[in-house]
């Protein structure tokens, strides 16, 4: 059950005493939350946490069965570390680019008539019904040295053409971005729809130009969506391997490919688990950082307002 009052500020809500806890748990909003959260939590405990637990424990087990951290040192040194770093970089690049493009597209869609908006969404979404393996052949035809893009550029005598658009980092980012775009577009669209256009009018009434209105009003209002979309595409990208493998070169190996290779060829789960745990920790650390940044900027703002 939703309640009219907005949720109390975290500071206020932080019930530290047990008495506070008991009161919180007895609140209708709390019970409602527990009721709704229980299915997914139980589901994930049974189908996710429990089954992978023993596998993840392997990351702490040596070949002889004893405790070891060497899978972690392995994962954090040499090639593995390189791969981890490149994965983070590609994921970051991808999520930034797909946020920017996704933002533009989503905004455009909010300004279109429903029928056109629907068609645009179709174009964005439909490619994803096709296996990445197959889609790649389309990319080759489009982006290859003799692909349509380069042929066109050469026909136009663009200096430097043909450009290498595949089998390097650019190729990977093109591929992963195209995969992540639908997520960012649809997510941002859902958020943008909720923005009261009247607020834009309000800013304009005070003489705010388009840029100011955009940065001071529109952007903050869709910021939660941007954060969500950014997190989602970043995380999805972290675990993505097909497109990078298909559209990148050997320097663009992603962690998921590495894991896949270790497991599928060598039945080597320990290292794979270590990498998985590291990804998990990195993600949580990232989320924590986000929250920290948010509360620090909030605090700074409050201090400024004082």
């Amino acid at each position, binding site marked *: 059950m*939703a309640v*009219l009052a907005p*949720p109390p500020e975290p500071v206020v*809500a932080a019930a530290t005493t047990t008495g506070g806890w008991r009161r*919180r748990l007895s609140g209708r909003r*709390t019970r409602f*939350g527990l009721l*709704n*959260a229980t*299915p997914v939590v139980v589901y*994930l405990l049974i*189908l*996710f946490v429990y*089954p*992978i637990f023993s596998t*993840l424990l392997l990351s702490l087990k040596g070949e002889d069965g004893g405790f070891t951290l060497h899978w972690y040192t392995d994962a954090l040194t040499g090639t593995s570390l390189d791969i981890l770093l490149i994965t983070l970089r590609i994921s970051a690049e991808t999520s930034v680019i797909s946020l920017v493009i996704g933002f*533009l597209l989503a905004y*455009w*869609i*909010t*300004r279109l008539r429903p029928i056109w*908006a*629907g*068609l645009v969404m179709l*174009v964005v979404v439909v490619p994803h*019904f096709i296996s990445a*393996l*197959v889609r790649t*052949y*389309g*990319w080759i*035809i489009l982006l290859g040295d003799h692909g349509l893009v380069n042929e066109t550029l050469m026909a136009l005598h663009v200096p430097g053409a043909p450009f290498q658009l595949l089998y390097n980092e650019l190729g990977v980012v093109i591929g992963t971005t195209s995969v992540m775009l639908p*997520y960012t577009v*649809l*997510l941002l*669209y*859902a*958020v943008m*729809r*909720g923005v009261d*256009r*009247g607020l*834009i009018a309000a800013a304009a009434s005070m003489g705010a130009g388009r840029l100011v209105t955009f940065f001071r009003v529109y952007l903050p209002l869709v910021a*939660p*969506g941007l954060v*969500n979309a950014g*997190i989602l595409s970043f*995380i*999805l990208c*972290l*675990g993505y391997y*097909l497109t990078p493998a298909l559209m990148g070169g050997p320097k663009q190996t992603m962690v*998921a490919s590495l894991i*896949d290779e270790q*497991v599928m060829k060598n039945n080597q789960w320990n290292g*794979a688990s270590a*990498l*998985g745990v590291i990804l*998990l920790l990195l993600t949580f650390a990232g*989320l924590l950082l986000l929250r920290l940044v948010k509360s620090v900027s909030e605090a700074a703002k409050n201090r400024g307002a004082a």
Partner: protein
Amino acid sequence: MIGLRDSVAGRVVLAVISLLVLVFLGMPIVLILVTSFGSDALGSFPPESWTMNWYQQLFADGSRWPAALALSATVAALTTVFSVALGMMAAIALVRSDLPMRSAVYGLVLAPLVIPQVVVALGLFLLFEPAAMLGSPIAIALGHTVLATPIAVMILMATLKGIDERLEDAAASMGAGRLTIARRITFPLAAPGVIAAAIFSFITSFDEFFISQFLSSVDTITLPVQVFNVLQFDVDPTVTAVAALLIAVALVALGLVSLLRRFGTGKQGGLLPVDVPAGGDTK
């Protein structure tokens, strides 16, 4: 009722950029479609001669494609139902309540996206194998739901945040129960998000490889597994015909969704998760 128009120049620039991006996104698919009618598919482009050969092979006797397509569609549909239901509840809990240990729950929900899929797949195998559920579409769907739910939750959370929750309160004040509120208020208002979540749940399942592979049995091969098997070692242009077919199926399915919405609500709506913007005029 109040809104600010975008400037003409801005609109033009935005449209041009957007169209370019769209062409870029759609082009590979168009190219594959064209290729699928070429006699030397995957060999040259544009094709030197045309053929329906690959489509015939798709439905030839002994072809595994129809079964794989049917299985994937079934599994994806189940996954969609599971993960949208779970995701909606989770999103409501995360956005609309005072949930104790909210961050922990959020972290748990996101974790399946980060853990390598092979690891998840092995875990599910170890869970379902003793239960004699290998090859069961339900088992595969339950597995895919683990991956699809986080995505659904993310999308639905963003959507819910954009909906004035006091509207739900208004309905409650008239005596609407929680289900009624969900059905009549939250869902219609969240429709774009719900449909987006459904689409991505479907796609997540439809495109998933490891879990499908690990949970497969003698007669259950999903489409991605079949595509992988086919392309792993050989050049088989039949996949282009499969791709073309899938595009058709996707278009029909998405078209149906919009029709259903139109008839369901009696309102003029768009094709996909698009609705008249809630916040202002449409122009």
